[in-house]
């Protein structure tokens, strides 16, 4: 199996503080991988490092191509969509403009139009609110918009930072259902960072557990879910 | 993410921490060396340069006042020239029309400017960032025009301004007028500097800095934000007014066109060059705005403005945090050597 994303000896810093202390992992093409860990373990930093949004050392290769030295915008243009924490909604713009922004680096007009339609069929509520200012959407709707905006890039890799954060349980089920569907139908590889380990392990095939900037455990989602320590620390039973 | 640029705006002094008070001033040893240098300087140079050094001290006081306002409470003013003018005119009028001793006019100027600053601080409470900058800017632009008003002419002398006598050294001391004025100014500058350092490291100073760093959190901690902000405006205006009074005595002349927006801009540039919020930097910034235009003039008469601009750019490119950054670098080098 070829690795879509190959990360090795990744270190990252915020100012003087080191957040990642040399970690490595590989993402299989077409799979869903979960990054688990407590608050402050460095999960978000891994995603930010992939998009060159923090100071890093080590190597990250996407489809065999090293990302070192590329700007965030050019990394995104390679086909890596990133739904950040807080969702990154363009609050002052309409829902439709948000979707257009997701596709801003593409030039195939037809494709953009048909993808917009496809997003509206994935998330019908967005169609109802297409002319509304995105900042007025509810949390769940904004999360759907964020996922839809990311997919408008037609990414090959989708990075999701806490997609369940602040959402009602029913909405979370919805969002994760659609993520699974997107992974199966559109063959988008997904790397998801989650506090809600149970949920993430249901969606993912593989998982890594991070503690204080290092990977302390890795394996298939089922193995991780059955691990005694993980169950105690992250699953709560 | 939710705070826009105009709001977070001005408070770019580093966040206050346990040693905020220490970073605001110099160590005792360094302070004494600088004081010694300032004491002997007039003995070594010509009278005209003594006069320039006096000007540096006076501007240094005015920049210190701006530093207290901006570095202390995070408010920003382009209107300092108005308070400087008010102080200068108060002293000049008291000396010339009421025959008050020049030294006694200074506290009066300070009090008048404190009141003016406090009153201006009240509406300014509603404004922050660039909006406050505009309001203070309006004040600075209006000042020369107001000073020219016909109704005030009996006191202000209108466009002509007022001439002030230069004081002699008291008690028959054998020093020139320039040297006496220098030492007189130096004594006041040192007193104001010490008082300011103490003010900023006091309870009130910490309250001011808490407001600068986070106004909402400060008010949640029980700090009376409105009171402290207006008080800071008042204190800053008072110190600026004293500098203005000294300026009137030193230059022996006040006129509306000495107090245009250019003066306010010069004081602002002095603050940036010295390092925003770093009190000792005020002296460095003052030296910059007094001497660098002359240097620029001597390099090229026709392009003196451009040369000044380029020199200013060089400074802010090399040390965006001004003299403070240089001082910090020196301190860490010395620290490493000792350690």
């Amino acid at each position, binding site marked *: 199996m070829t690795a879509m994303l190959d990360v090795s000896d990744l270190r990252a810093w915020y100012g003087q503080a080191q957040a990642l202390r040399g970690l490595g992992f590989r993402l299989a093409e077409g799979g869903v991988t979960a990054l688990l860990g407590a608050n402050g373990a460095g999960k978000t930093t891994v995603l930010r490092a992939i998009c060159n949004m923090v100071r890093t050392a080590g190597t990250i290769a996407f489809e065999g191509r090293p990302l070192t030295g590329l700007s965030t915008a050019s990394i995104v243009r390679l086909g890596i969509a990133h739904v950040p924490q807080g969702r990154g909604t363009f609050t002052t713009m309409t829902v439709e403009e948000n979707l257009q922004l997701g596709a801003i680096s593409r030039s195939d007009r037809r494709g953009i139009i048909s993808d917009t339609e496809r997003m509206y069929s994935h998330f019908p509520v967005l169609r109802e609110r297409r002319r509304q200012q995105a900042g007025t959407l509810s949390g769940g709707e904004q999360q759907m918009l964020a996922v839809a905006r990311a997919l408008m890039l037609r990414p090959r890799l989708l990075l999701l930072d806490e997609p369940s954060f602040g959402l009602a349980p029913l909405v979370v089920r919805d969002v994760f259902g659609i993520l699974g569907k997107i992974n199966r139908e559109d063959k988008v590889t997904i790397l998801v960072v989650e506090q809600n380990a149970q949920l993430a392990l249901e969606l993912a095939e593989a998982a890594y557990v991070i503690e204080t900037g290092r990977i302390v455990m890795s394996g298939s989602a089922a193995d991780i879910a059955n691990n005694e320590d993980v169950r105690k620390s992250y699953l709560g039973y | 993410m939710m705070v826009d*640029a105009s709001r977070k705006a001005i408070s770019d002094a580093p966040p206050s921490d346990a040693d905020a008070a220490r970073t605001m001033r110099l160590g005792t040893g360094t302070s004494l060396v600088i004081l010694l240098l300032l004491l002997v300087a007039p003995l070594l140079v010509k009278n005209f340069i003594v006069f320039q050094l006096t000007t540096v001290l006076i501007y240094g006081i005015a920049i210190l006042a701006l530093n207290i306002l901006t570095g202390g409470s995070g408010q920003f003013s382009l209107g300092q020239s108005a308070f400087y003018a008010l102080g200068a005119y108060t002293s000049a009028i008291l000396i010339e029309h009421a025959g008050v001793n020049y030294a006694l006019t200074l506290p009066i100027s300070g009090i008048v400017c404190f009141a003016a600053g406090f009153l201006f601080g009240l509406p300014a409470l509603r*404004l922050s960032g660039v*909006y406050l900058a505009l309001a203070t800017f309006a004040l600075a632009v209006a000042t020369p025009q107001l000073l020219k008003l016909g109704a005030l002419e009996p006191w202000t002398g209108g466009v002509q301004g007022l001439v002030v006598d230069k004081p002699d050294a008291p008690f028959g001391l054998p020093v020139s007028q320039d040297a006496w004025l220098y030492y007189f100014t130096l004594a006041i500058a040192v007193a104001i500097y010490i008082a300011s350092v103490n003010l900023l490291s006091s309870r009130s100073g910490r309250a001011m800095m808490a407001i600068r760093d986070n106004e909402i959190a400060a008010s949640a901690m029980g700090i009376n934000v409105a009171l402290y902000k207006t008080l800071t405006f008042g204190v800053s205006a008072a110190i600026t007014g004293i500098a203005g009074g000294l300026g009137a005595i030193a230059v022996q002349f006040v006129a509306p066109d000495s107090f245009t927006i250019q003066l306010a801009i010069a004081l602002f540039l002095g603050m940036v060059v010295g390092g925003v919020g770093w009190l000792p930097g005020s002296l460095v910034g003052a030296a910059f705005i007094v001497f660098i235009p002359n240097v620029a003039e001597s390099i090229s008469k026709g392009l003196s403005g451009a040369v000044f601009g380029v020199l200013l750019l060089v400074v802010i490119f090399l040390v965006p945090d001004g003299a403070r950054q240089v001082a910090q670098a020196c301190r860490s080098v010395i620290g490493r050597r000792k350690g």
Partner: protein
Amino acid sequence: MELLSNQILAGIATGAIYACMALALVMIYQAIGQLNFAQGEMAMFSTFMAWQMIHWGAPYWAAFVLTLMLSFAGGVVIERLLFRPLAKAPILTNLAGFLALFAIINSVAGLIWDFTIKPFPSPFGSSPFLGSRLVSTHQAGMIGVILLVLAVLFVFLRFTRMGLAMRAAAAQPESARLVGIDTNRMIALGWGMAAAVGAVAGMLIAPVVFLDPNMMGGVLIYGFAAAVLGGLSSPPGAVVGGFLVGIIENLVGTYVSGVGNELKLPIALALIVIVLVVKPSGLFGRQEIKRV
């Protein structure tokens, strides 16, 4: 009554210039969160370039268009050379940078073209407009050109993908990078456009105030006032602010007794400050929500 309506019309004409300056200021403010104190000097320099071309025999509109292009390039260069390196410096240091730029441009223009006042041609002539004593054809043409500039900008920002990307980069730079927008390029573009818009203002006001290196001082102050009055977060607000400031300035000068040219500016500014005290983020600005 005729005096009043004519004064308002004259106010709209000068207001159009302030609107242009305010718009240029807001464009840069939106891109980098800074007020460009050198905007007026940049416009002045552009106007001198146009004057030089006309002096060398170029037709007015050719010089006009070429000046716009050169100004755009100049704006981009200034951003790259001066303000990109300062992007991480404190905001007040940036302000000092603008003032340095101000001094440099003013001094260089004085050296090249000296400080004597020069007339600048108007393509619209200066006869009375529709028989009005206070409004000339130049002022009418000025309003027309500026409304056209505003319309073009509006269409660009509202209906083109590039405009959308620019707005996104200004509103949420980090999110913009995450959809693949090169925000640095957008900032440079914003500077270029602001410089070009400023050049339009300079070339249109020059026939009225005459050409010299200090011509934009007063205009810039009113431009600031207009931008702040309208709300810095709102380009249309800046335009309305420009017109309002122009009208206020004219009416204060005409109807308040004892107000000469000297006091017009302070009074206009005082009025604006009063408005701000009532509405601290400008007439059309959004009140930002603060989080602790």
